[in-house]
């Protein structure tokens, strides 16, 4: 099916973008190494959460604290933002006129979805505090607060990075540093989807089942 092999994991820009494609190899691989170390962090916080599930110390548990509906909407928002990010990368890669506008439009939509996710998550965490779910209440809640807000912080950081890249596209156009930055942010953006799937399955769906 393909005549070339990919040089690195993640979407390859291909020989139509020779300079960025060449530079991306080491940069994207390096970013994957970081991403995998981050995966270990999240995995172990998730394992800690599982070991803490029964340690309520008389405080509220999953069924008292969590609500399915906001988590459902947040999941849809995050999954959709992954698709729109993919569309941004595809228009970067394939737009015949190498136009900036379609890339910026998709990136803008992705940014809006990412920020909406963070806002909803912040509202949920605030509601949790109102229900007596502060991190110091029990071992269970400490583990929860170490895990879920850390993911939200990652999404916030990714959104800030996305804003910086949008500003760069605005100022410099689609040059090589911008292209390789978009490939790396893409790895982070899709990876945060994977982590969120693990979190909803164990924490929210598992807790409310």
């Amino acid at each position, binding site marked *: 099916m393909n005549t*070339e092999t990919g*040089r690195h994991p993640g979407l*390859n820009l291909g020989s139509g973008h020779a300079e960025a494609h060449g530079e991306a190899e080491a940069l994207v691989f390096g970013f994957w190494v970081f991403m995998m170390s981050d995966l270990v962090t999240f995995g172990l916080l998730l394992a800690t959460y599982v070991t803490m599930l029964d340690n309520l110390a008389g405080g509220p548990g999953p069924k008292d604290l969590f609500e*399915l509906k906001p988590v459902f909407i947040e999941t849809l928002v995050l999954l959709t933002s*992954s698709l729109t990010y993919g569309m941004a990368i*595809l228009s970067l890669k394939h737009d015949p006129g190498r136009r900036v506008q379609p890339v910026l439009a998709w990136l803008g939509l992705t940014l809006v979805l990412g920020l909406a996710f963070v806002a909803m998550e912040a509202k949920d965490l605030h509601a949790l505090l109102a229900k007596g779910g502060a991190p110091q209440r029990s071992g269970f809640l400490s583990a929860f607060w170490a895990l879920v807000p850390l993911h939200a912080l990652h999404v916030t950081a990714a959104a800030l990075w996305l804003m910086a890249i949008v500003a760069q596209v605005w100022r410099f156009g689609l040059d090589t540093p911008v292209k390789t930055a978009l490939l790396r942010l893409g790895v982070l953006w899709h990876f945060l*989807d994977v982590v969120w*799937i693990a979190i909803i399955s164990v924490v929210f769906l598992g807790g409310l*089942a």
Partner: protein
Amino acid sequence: MSAPVETEDETGTPDGTPQQELRSYLWGYGLSLLLTLPVFGAVAWDWLPRAALWWAIGAAAVAQVAVQFRFFLHIRLKGQAKEDLQLVLFTALILAMMGGGTIWILHNLDGRMGGP
């Protein structure tokens, strides 16, 4: 699959023609929704007994992670440098040992200490 790639100006990038790539993203999105919606439905309306529900959530999550890696992160078994796949698989191994080990040991300890 063995048909030659159209030779416009996009001759065989590693991810296929633009149409194939677009279709791949849409498939990924469709599959991820398909693996998400029924699970939320099952939890919201108690379609299954508890143990079966947990198994369903776990199976859907594993499939979902595979979909995300395949369609969005473009990690494949073939067609890319081997080191990258090895990096991901090795991390998965380390994580399985450390995460699984943590849960196993602490659960065991909890049992021996009488538990809360």
